[in-house]
C-alpha cells in the first residue's frame, strides 16, 4: 500500500514537472531553445548510431530491390545505351577524322596559294605492287593532266616524281628510292648536288664539292634545275657528311623532310612556275620572230 502511494506521488510529481517544463518552454522560448540544443547534442550523437544502422539497412533493401528484383526493363535499356555508346563512339571517330582531314586540306590549300607552281591535289590510294621499289599510287592520271616526270610534294617538302601514268592513276617514285635522282642545293652553302635514295630508306646528297663546308644539320632544298620542281622546296636535313680519302666529291645522308610512310594527300606539280605557259608562249614568239627573215 505504501509502495502504491509512493508511486502515485512520484507520478504526480513527474506530471507537475513536465507541466512546468511545457509552461517554461512556452513562456521562455529562447532560453528553452538553448537548453534543448544543449541537451540535443549528445542525444543526437546517440541517435545517429541506430539511424545509420537503419539507413544502411534501408539502403541495402533499396539496392536489392532496384538491383535484383526490379530489373525488368534495365536489360533492354542497357542494350540500348550500349548501342548509343557505340554509335556515338563511331560518330566521334568520324568527327576527329574530319577535323584532321580538314587541317590537312587547309595546309594543302595554304601551300597551293603560296606556291609559285600550278598544282593538282591527289590522294594516295596504294603502295607499289612489289617490295623492290619505294613507290605510291595516286588517284589522278592522264585524264586529269598528270604526266610522267611531274614532281610530287606536300606542304612539308618533296615526296618524289611521277614515273608511270595510266588514265585514272599514276605511280610516284619516292625520293628515298635508289632509282630516283633530284637536283638539290644545300641552303646555307649553296652547294649543289644530286639527291638519290638509299637502300636504307633514306636519301643521300651526292657530288658535293670537296671544299664545301657542309655539315650535319644543313637543310637541302630543290635547286630548280630539273623541270619537275621549282627552286626552294624542302627535301630534308643532312644527318651525316662523308668525305673519303681519294674521292673527288663529298656525300651526305639526308633525313627526308616528309614522313613518307604516313601520306594521305599530296600535290602534283603540273607546272613548276605559275606563268610557265606565258613564258613558253613568249619563248615561242621570240623563236618565231628569229626564224622570220
Amino acid at each position: 500500500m505504501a509502495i502504491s502511494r509512493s508511486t502515485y506521488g512520484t507520478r504526480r510529481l513527474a506530471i507537475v514537472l513536465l507541466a512546468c517544463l511545457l509552461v517554461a518552454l512556452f513562456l521562455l522560448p529562447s532560453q528553452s531553445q538553448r537548453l534543448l540544443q544543449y541537451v540535443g547534442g549528445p542525444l543526437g550523437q546517440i541517435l545517429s548510431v541506430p539511424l545509420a544502422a537503419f539507413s544502411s539497412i534501408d539502403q541495402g533493401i533499396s539496392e536489392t530491390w532496384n538491383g535484383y528484383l526490379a530489373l525488368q526493363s534495365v536489360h533492354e535499356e542497357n542494350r540500348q545505351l550500349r548501342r548509343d555508346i557505340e554509335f556515338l563512339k563511331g560518330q566521334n571517330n568520324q568527327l576527329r577524322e574530319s577535323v584532321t582531314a580538314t587541317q590537312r586540306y587547309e595546309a594543302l590549300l595554304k601551300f597551293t596559294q603560296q606556291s609559285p607552281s600550278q598544282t593538282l591535289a591527289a590522294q594516295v590510294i596504294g603502295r607499289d605492287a612489289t617490295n623492290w621499289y619505294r613507290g605510291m599510287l595516286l588517284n589522278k592520271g592522264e585524264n586529269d593532266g598528270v604526266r610522267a616526270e611531274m614532281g610530287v610534294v606536300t606542304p612539308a617538302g618533296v615526296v618524289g616524281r611521277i614515273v608511270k601514268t595510266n588514265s585514272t592513276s599514276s605511280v610516284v617514285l619516292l625520293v628515298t628510292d635508289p632509282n630516283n635522282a633530284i637536283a638539290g642545293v644545300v641552303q646555307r652553302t649553296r652547294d649543289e648536288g644530286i639527291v638519290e635514295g638509299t637502300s636504307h630508306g633514306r636519301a643521300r646528297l651526292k657530288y658535293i664539292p670537296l671544299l664545301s663546308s657542309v655539315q650535319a644539320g644543313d637543310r637541302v632544298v630543290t635547286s630548280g634545275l630539273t623541270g619537275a620542281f621549282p627552286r626552294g622546296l624542302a627535301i630534308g636535313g643532312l644527318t651525316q657528311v662523308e668525305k673519303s680519302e681519294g674521292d673527288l666529291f663529298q656525300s651526305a645522308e639526308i633525313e627526308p623532310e616528309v614522313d613518307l610512310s604516313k601520306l594521305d594527300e599530296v600535290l602534283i606539280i603540273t607546272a613548276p612556275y605559275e606563268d610557265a605557259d606565258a613564258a613558253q608562249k613568249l619563248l615561242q614568239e621570240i623563236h618565231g620572230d628569229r626564224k622570220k627573215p
Partner: protein
Amino acid sequence: MKFLIYLLLALIVVPFQTTLLHYVSLFGVRPDLGLVAACLVGFLGGELDGLILGLLLGCFQDMLSAGDLWINVITKGGGGFLAGLAGRHMAHMTPAVLTAGLAIISCLSSVVFLYSMNPAGIDEVWMGVRSTVLVQAGFDAMVGAGLYLLFRQRWSDDRMVTEGAL
C-alpha cells in the same frame, strides 16, 4: 572460261596487294600474292595455267609498280610456268613440298628484281638478299602453304572427280 576466271582473279589480287597488304607487312616486306597465286595455280593446274595467270598478274602489277614494264610479267609468268613443270613431275603434292617450291621460286624471282636494279656492289646485293629476298621467300611460302591447306579439300575433290572422269 578459265581465262576469264584468271582475269577476275588477277583483277582482285593486284589491287588487294597494292592497297591493303601493307597492313600485314613483316620488316617492311609484304608477301607477293601475285607470285603465290601463279605458283599455286601452276603447281595444281599445270604449266599453261600457271603461265597464263602469271602473265596476267605480272601485267597488272607492272602497271601499278615503279619498275620496268617487263619485270613482273617475266617473273610471275616464269614462276607460274616453273611451278607447273615442277607440279607435273611430282607424284604427291604435300604442304612441305609446296612450301619449299614456293620459297625457291620466290627467291629466283627476287634475284631477277635485285639484278634489274643494278646494285652498286656485293654489299648491296647481300643487303637485298637479307632484307628482302629471304624475308619475302619465307612470307610467300607461308602464305602459299596456308592457302593450300585452306583449299586442299576442294582441290583434292576436284582431282578425284577428274581422275574418276578419266
